[in-house]
Every structure is written in structure tokens, then in C-alpha cells.
């Protein structure tokens, strides 16, 4: 039987704020255990929550970026469950009146096509602490630094049809969040986390199959692997004549499998009710408009502009605009060098390879935008050839002096002096009588061999166009 996969993602993003969602405790990553956990975060009697305005602004900003409806009135609710990393015994979340309602975003698929994915809602809630189960003689250790960190939970519609689409969606979300600067969204550090709801149904069937929720997927690569594993597992369950059980499953990256965690039907009754310690959050149009004004140009708009304004192809434009810093780097190089095409080629080629190799962000690149622009300018004014430029580029990684100094020092300036080029060409003609003969008999392609010989003789420094010209004239 042919199956169709249906996936919806729930993505938690830690919002970048100085303090926690409901208290004035610092919320930085990586602090000593419990040094960022004060009386409110520990839920000592009598403490009350007060909402962090910045977190609310971040949530609204995200909503505007995905063209979602923004609720002018939103309400916080208590989600009750018992676990020691949640000292209050409930998590403050939003159930019926989330801040961000229905929206959508566009994903880019590998074949170059696009697909719109619905976002059901995005609600604000507080993060829990962390439990450590080893090394405490039968006890668990609790670190509450993370407790109360503001989260935005972004829930997608079940619009995704395979693991690759899920990854594309997550990447697009990641890109938008970084553009908005509302979170550092680092999956490895848990500031962006993804749960996947996965079900399968016979192709053509409208009703959804029973879904499982996969947790603990902490990289883009694992999202794809975990979903593929789970789809395969569900197919086998059904083909064996059994039923898929609705449950939460944990992804184990080492074994590449999902394991049953707990059965949702029996375990979860969160007894939600409106949080009595918080009043409804009411925002007006002026508040929303003031946030709209802070929206940057977003990846899709930037990509369209790069195609139109700079003549980039779709692929290059996608790669470059995927990352806001990369897009800014590109615009800076283009402005300073006056050549968008060369800028794009260098950035998606040599520079990207260099960054990947060293695991650097573009902001950490030893070759800053203005220096790459200088290099491109020297290619354009024929000071160096494209081939030599690659060697200069290598030199620029270690050497922070100016591009002109590096070219000078390496003695790699392109030879454009016609006297010198003529000498080179004469030498090549003398050394290659057979090829010269062939060319004169009409075998045009031999010319590139002869040009190659001249370039080799000049150690790559001769201007290939001039060499070509001289050869043609002399061999007439």
C-alpha cells in the first residue's frame, strides 16, 4: 500500500531577554547551577509573576513576521503537572488565547519549488529547570537556572508531508528568528527545540492516522532521521496488523531509533485554568504598529530583491539570504566592489568552503567584507587573474594586511605589460612547433593549449586575454 506521511512540528524557542519571563532574575545560558534562580523562580510562598515586556514584544514581532493575527487580548493559563524541575507545580502557558494566532511561512524545497506551511499558533510560556539523575546517591539534582526563561512555542499545521519538508520548515523558522533577533536559536544548546507529531495514512485518505509525538530532537539532521525512522516504524506496525498507539516517543540519536516514553492517554491531564496571578494582557494597535516598524527585511523579500536588483540566480540568492549576516556581508562586498556576480560566486564558493571547514560563522570570517571587495576590485582592474586571486584569498586568511600589500609581496601582480607578454608568447611559439602547425591548419582548440602554456610560463601572472590576443595576431 502507498502511504502518506503527515507531520506537524512544535518548536520551542527561548526568547532573548536579559531577565526571565515573570521575574527580574538573569536568564543567561551556561551560568553556575542555581545562581539564576531566586525566590520567584523557586516558587516560595507569596511571590507573584509580572510579565516581561520585551518577551511580549518578541512574540508579537514573530507573529507579524509570519503574517499572523496578533491577539489584542491574550490570557495566561496554568498547566498543572508535578516534576521537581517545575517548583510551582504548574507551568504558566497560554491555552485558549495565545498572543499569536494563525499565520504561515514559505519553505524552499530541494527541487527549487516553494510550499506554504500554516502556523496554527505561537504562545508564550515559561521554561522548566533541568534534572540531573546521575551521581547523587539515589537522589536527583535540580538546577533551576532555566526555570522561568521565556519561551515561544510555535505550532505548525499538519502540512508537512515528509522529513525533508520538516527540515526545510525548521530551517526557515530558524532563519526568520535570527533575522528578527528574538532568540539565538541554537539547537545544540536547547535555545531552539523541536518536537514532531508524526502519523501516516493510506494515500488518498482524508482522515488523519493516530500520531506519535517525538521528543528530544536537537539538530536539523536528527529531525530528518527521527521522522524517517518513525514513519518506517509506523508502517511496520500497521503492516503487522497492529495499531499505532498515541504516545510520546523519545529519539535516541546514538541508536537512531525512537522509544516509547509515556502513553499520552493515561498520563496527561494538565487541568488547565486561567492564571489567577496574572490579568489579561491587552495591547493596542499603536503597540503592534510600533513593533511592525522594527521588522527587518525578511529572507523571502531579501531573496526576491537580490534576484531582481543584482541578477543573482535563485540558488545563490537563497543561500546568501538564508543568513542575515551573510546577506549583509554580500551587500557590503557588492557595494564596495561594484560586482554582485563575482561577490556571490566568491561568497557561495571559496568563502563558504572556508567557513564550513573551520566551523566559523560569517561574522567570524578572517576575511572581512571590505577585504573581499578589494580582492574582487583587483580582479576587475586586471591587477590579478581569477586564478591568482584564489591564491591571494588563501594568503588573506593568515595575513591581515591590505590586499594590495599581499599581492605586491607575493609578486603575483598580473603581467599586463605588452612587451613582456609578447616575449612569453614568442617563447611558447618556439617551444611548440607541432601545436602551432596544427593551429595554422585550422585546429582552433589548440589555441587554449598554447594560452595555457604561456600562463604556466608566467606562473599564472599573465593576463590571459592579452595572451590570447597576441597569440592570435602572431599565428595569423
Amino acid at each position: 500500500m502507498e502511504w502518506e506521511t503527515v507531520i506537524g512540528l512544535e518548536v520551542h524557542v527561548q526568547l532573548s531577554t536579559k531577565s526571565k519571563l515573570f521575574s527580574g532574575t538573569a536568564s543567561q545560558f551556561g551560568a553556575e547551577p542555581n545562581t539564576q534562580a531566586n525566590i520567584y523562580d523557586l516558587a516560595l510562598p507569596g511571590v507573584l509573576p509580572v510579565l516581561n515586556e520585551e518577551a511580549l514584544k518578541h512574540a508579537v514581532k514573530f507573529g507579524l513576521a509570519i503574517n499572523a493575527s496578533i491577539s489584542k487580548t491574550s490570557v495566561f493559563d496554568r498547566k498543572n503537572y508535578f516534576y521537581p524541575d517545575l517548583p510551582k507545580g504548574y507551568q504558566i502557558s497560554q491555552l485558549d488565547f495565545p498572543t499569536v494566532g494563525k499565520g504561515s511561512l514559505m519553505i524552499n524545497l530541494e527541487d527549487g519549488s516553494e510550499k506554504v506551511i500554516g502556523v496554527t499558533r505561537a504562545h508564550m510560556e515559561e521554561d522548566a529547570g533541568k534534572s540531573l539523575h546521575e551521581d547523587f546517591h539515589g537522589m536527583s539534582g535540580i538546577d533551576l537556572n532555566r526555570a522561568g526563561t521565556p519561551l515561544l512555542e510555535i505550532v505548525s499545521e499538519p502540512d508537512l508531508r515528509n522529513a525533508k519538508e520538516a527540515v526545510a520548515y525548521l530551517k526557515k523558522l530558524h532563519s526568520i528568528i535570527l533575522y528578527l533577533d528574538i532568540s539565538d536559536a541554537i539547537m545544540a544548546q536547547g535555545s531552539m527545540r523541536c518536537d514532531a507529531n508524526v502519523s501516516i495514512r493510506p494515500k488518498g485518505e482524508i482522515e488523519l492516522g493516530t500520531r506519535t509525538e517525538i521528543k528530544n530532537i536537537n539538530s536539523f539532521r536528527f529531525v530528518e532521521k527521527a521522522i524517517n525512522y518513525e514513519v518506517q516504524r509506523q508502517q511496520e506496525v500497521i503492516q503487522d496488523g497492529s495499531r499505532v498507539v498515541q504516545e510520546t516517543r523519545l529519539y535516541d540519536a546514538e541508536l537512531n531509533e525512537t522509544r516509547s516514553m509515556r502513553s499520552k492517554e493515561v498520563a496527561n491531564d494538565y487541568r488547565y485554568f486561567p492564571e489567577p496571578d496574572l490579568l489579561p494582557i491587552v495591547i493596542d494597535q499603536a503597540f503592534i504598529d510600533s513593533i511592525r516598524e522594527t521588522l527587518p527585511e525578511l529572507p523571502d523579500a531579501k531573496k526576491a530583491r537580490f534576484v531582481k536588483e543584482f541578477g543573482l540566480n535563485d540558488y545563490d540568492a537563497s543561500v546568501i539570504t538564508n543568513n542575515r549576516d551573510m546577506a549583509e556581508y554580500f551587500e557590503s562586498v557588492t557595494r564596495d566592489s561594484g560586482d554582485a556576480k563575482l561577490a556571490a560566486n566568491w561568497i557561495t564558493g571559496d568563502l563558504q568552503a572556508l567557513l564550513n571547514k573551520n566551523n566559523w560563522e560569517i561574522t567570524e570570517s578572517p576575511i572581512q567584507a571590505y577585504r573581499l571587495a578589494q580582492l574582487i576590485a583587483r580582479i576587475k582592474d586586471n591587477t590579478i587573474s581569477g586564478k591568482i586571486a584564489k591564491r591571494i584569498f588563501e594568503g588573506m586568511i593568515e595575513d591581515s594586511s591590505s590586499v594590495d600589500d599581499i599581492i605586491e609581496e607575493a609578486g603575483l601582480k598580473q603581467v599586463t605589460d605588452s612587451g613582456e607578454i609578447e616575449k612569453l608568447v614568442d617563447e611558447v611559439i618556439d617551444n611548440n612547433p607541432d601545436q602551432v602547425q596544427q593551429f595554422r591548419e585550422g585546429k582552433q582548440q589548440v589555441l587554449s593549449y598554447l594560452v595555457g602554456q604561456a600562463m604556466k610560463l608566467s606562473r599564472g601572472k599573465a593576463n590571459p586575454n592579452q595572451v590570447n590576443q597576441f597569440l592570435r595576431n602572431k599565428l595569423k
Partner: protein
Amino acid sequence: MALDKSELEKIAHLARLHITKAESEEVMLRITDILALIDEMQSINTNDVAPLAHPLDLLQRLRTDEITERDYRDELQSLAPEAQEGLYLVPKVIE
């Protein structure tokens, strides 16, 4: 619905509250009163009443995103039954 003494002791223990013998009689009466109030509330027909997010007709004030708390770990951990290497220790919990 009334509360008996052993239930009160159990709840106090779970909430880590110390209630003396002298106080227990009064606390029990007050909790019993609250439970009676809840019974009364549950008997009211609310079919035509729109859900209310909050009884006060006021709006939530927001807090500027500033760090107003310092690190009180040592003071707070001195209140905890057990702590080690900066972590609060609790009976082992694992799913």
C-alpha cells in the same frame, strides 16, 4: 466535605508547612470552610455565563526587561533539605 486530621497532616507535609498542634484545629476549620465554598460554587448553574479570564476588571502591567535580582543561592540553599554542588537534591525521579 470535611477534612480529617491525617489528611491535614499529609497536605502540610507535602507543602512543607509546619503546623503546630495548637494551630491545627483552626487551620482545619478554615480549610473545611473553603471546601464548603467550593461545593457551593460548583452547585451554581453557569451555562449562560461567559468564561472570565480574571475577576478583576483591570489590565496587566508589564515589567521592563531588567535584572533586578542578584544571586541568592547560598541563602536559598541553606533553606533546602539537601543541596550538593549547587544543585537542589530531591528523591530520585526518572520517567
